[in-house]
């Protein structure tokens, strides 16, 4: 990291749901106001605003940051818009972190959102373009062959995806902000859902959500002040971005080099040599259940081919050695543009001890992970309860 330390002193999010009956401005402002309240700040305390979201097409507003300047209290301030595929929520938080780490600003508000009810994301993603392979009915159709390939390589049995979905949906019952609250969910109920993109069942798929997430980031003085006031901050120990080509025949879409490099970079910055032992809790971007074992391997938590065994042995449950997605994850709430920032924010909530019923006791070090595109864009940060 740069010369300046970065602290997360405020986190806010909406109650994610299929349709938030309000304006886009209302959605982002709700999350931002909650983050400011959590940080014990007001709008005038903020130096700059960084906003991110996935494609403008999803709400039909070109460069929505322009019309959201008022709602986010950005008038007269620098306002910055990030757009990096599904990883955008993570990339946005990293730009905000950079604005503090560089010494440019002292207090930055960062927000990410999506209002999927304004359109139909699956078909918005499926625009047929000349000279490009078609997406075939959204992201599930794109990712299903990657999952099938993972199953073939690793010998993972069919039920692993259902186990992941069951864990995340049960975790979501502990998170009041999660979109899906399926009180009576069971292995059988998920297993019996319709097969959408073989091997991905409906029950192993993320929902379409409206929602937003916001964080207030400060410099070291701001983090110290929050700690002194009894509001422990999360400290940023490392941030990393990686991208790789979409159509390059040499890339491995099951275990992408970009994800491996990004994880190695962020763990090195955080001084972590054994991620499985040294990371207490993980929020990873799992839009389809099978990506949990795939990313466990890609991020270096599990040996290659063993990710599914971690799932089967309960390692990633809240009671396991490496709890993953205690919030319920993307499988329980997917406001796309915000989903990456939710991972980053939930990681911060865990090390701040503010995750409520889905808190892992004593969590000190957490990874926030986001990915996008066809698994070629990655953003990650490591946050800690102690200063770097």
């Amino acid at each position, binding site marked *: 990291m*740069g*010369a300046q330390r970065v602290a997360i002193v405020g986190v806010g999010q909406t109650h994610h749901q299929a349709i938030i009956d309000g*304006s*886009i401005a209302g959605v982002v402002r709700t999350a931002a106001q909650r983050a400011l309240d959590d940080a014990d700040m007001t709008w005038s305390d903020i130096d700059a605003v960084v906003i991110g979201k*996935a*494609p*403008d*097409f*999803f*709400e*039909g*507003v*070109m*460069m929505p940051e*322009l*019309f*959201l*300047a*008022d709602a986010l209290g*950005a*008038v*007269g*301030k*620098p*306002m*910055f*818009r*990030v*757009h*990096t*595929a599904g990883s955008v929520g993570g*990339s946005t938080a*990293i*730009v905000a972190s*950079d*604005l503090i*780490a*560089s*010494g*440019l600003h002292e207090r930055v508000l960062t927000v990410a959102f999506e209002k999927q009810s304004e359109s139909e994301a699956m078909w918005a*993603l499926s*625009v047929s*373009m000349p*000279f*490009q392979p078609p997406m075939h009915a959204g992201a599930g159709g794109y990712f299903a062959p990657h999952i099938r390939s993972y199953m073939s390589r690793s010998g993972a049995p069919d039920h692993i995806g259902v186990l992941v979905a069951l864990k995340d949906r049960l975790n979501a019952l502990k998170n009041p902000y999660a979109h899906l609250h399926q009180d009576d969910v069971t292995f059988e109920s998920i297993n019996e859902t319709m097969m959408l993109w073989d091997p991905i069942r409906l029950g192993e798929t993320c929902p379409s959500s409206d929602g937003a997430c916001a964080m207030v980031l400060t410099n070291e003085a701001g983090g110290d002040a929050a700690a002194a006031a009894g509001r422990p901050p999360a400290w940023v120990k490392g941030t*990393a*971005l*990686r*991208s*790789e*080509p*979409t*159509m390059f025949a040499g890339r491995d879409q099951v275990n992408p*080099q*970009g994800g491996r*490099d*990004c994880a190695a970079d962020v763990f090195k910055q955080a001084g972590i040599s054994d991620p499985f032992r040294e990371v207490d809790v993980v929020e990873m971007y799992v839009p389809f259940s099978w990506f949990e074992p795939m990313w466990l391997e890609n991020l270096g938590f599990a040996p290659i081919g063993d990710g599914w065994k971690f799932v089967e042995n309960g390692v990633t449950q809240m009671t396991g050695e490496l709890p993953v997605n205690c919030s319920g994850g993307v499988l329980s709430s997917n406001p796309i543009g915000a989903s990456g920032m939710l991972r980053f924010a939930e990681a911060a909530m865990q090390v701040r001890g503010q995750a409520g019923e889905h808190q892992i006791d004593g969590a000190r070090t957490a990874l926030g992970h986001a990915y996008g*595109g066809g698994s*070629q*864009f990655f953003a990650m940060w490591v946050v800690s309860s102690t200063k770097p």
Partner: protein
Amino acid sequence: MRDVAIISFAQTKHAREISDINEVEILMPLMTEALASAGIAKERVDFVCSASSDYLAGQPFSFVMSLDAFGPWPPISESHVDMDGAWAMYEAWVKMQMGKTDIALVYAYGKSSPGNIRRVLSRQLDPYSLGPLWLDSVSIAAMQARLGLDAGVFTEQQIAEVVVDARRHGAQNPFAQLGGTFDVAGLLEEPEFVAPLRKHDCAPVTDGAAVMILAAGDVARELSDRPAWIRGIDHRIEAAALGVRDLTRSTSTKLAAQHARVAAGAVDFAELHAPFAHQELLLRAAIGLDDSVTVNPSGGALCANPIMTAGLVRLGEAAARITRGDGDRAVAHATSGPCLQQNLVCVLEGD
């Protein structure tokens, strides 16, 4: 702040329509040119940041494919903004402040020709109030011009003078789309397009792209005989609702110019991103440039206005002039949104 300079810049010959090649094919020769000009291989680039709009490409995540122009293998540290390329440059500059990033490559592109840009830009408006009216970009700018004329902030004569200068400069710029010799009286005889604007008061519809390379400190000195150092940079935004703004002044530009410390020294020339002629006059006033300062020696956006790119081109044109020794201190400016809603101001200096 860490010293960071623009050391290389490449742009397309901007045109009304570049229809026979796609965005990757437009960008690739520019990448090669910019890297060759800096004398480096792409492996030395520590960070890449780009700017584009899905609404121009007609495709969600359109930037995903254009990254192929750089060839990001092995995987690279990379980001993208849905703003003008000047803000991509800003993100790269921020990244370089933290010390580990020494060389950054920035690119931006926009093809307006496949759609109707006036209607496309109306999608920037508040989707609940103005957006449903499909109020187009030229009509909004015309209302701003009318307000300025009525308030006596500028005259039709002055607007025409901006166009005469821009076209004269454009004729000297091999990358410009428009250029030529005109006089004020002749321009004022042209029919109004969207009153009070005439066609020549409006930027042309343009396809184009640009690539820029930034380097920090000693690396910049190693790679360039005369780097264009970024001595101040800031950006500010105003409210979206047109009715709550004083459209005859650019308050966000004024604020950004103060934070970029424009007034700390004499300005030799300025590259201002004014898609409409009267906006150049508003920008001059907001930045505090007196009549002795040459504005838009490249011809400016009035001679080529690739959307998402024209602001980055202002930075690149100003830097290229500094590097050539055509001046020691320049102001470069970029804008986004209706009626100059969001503005970035950068001060560039030679050694």
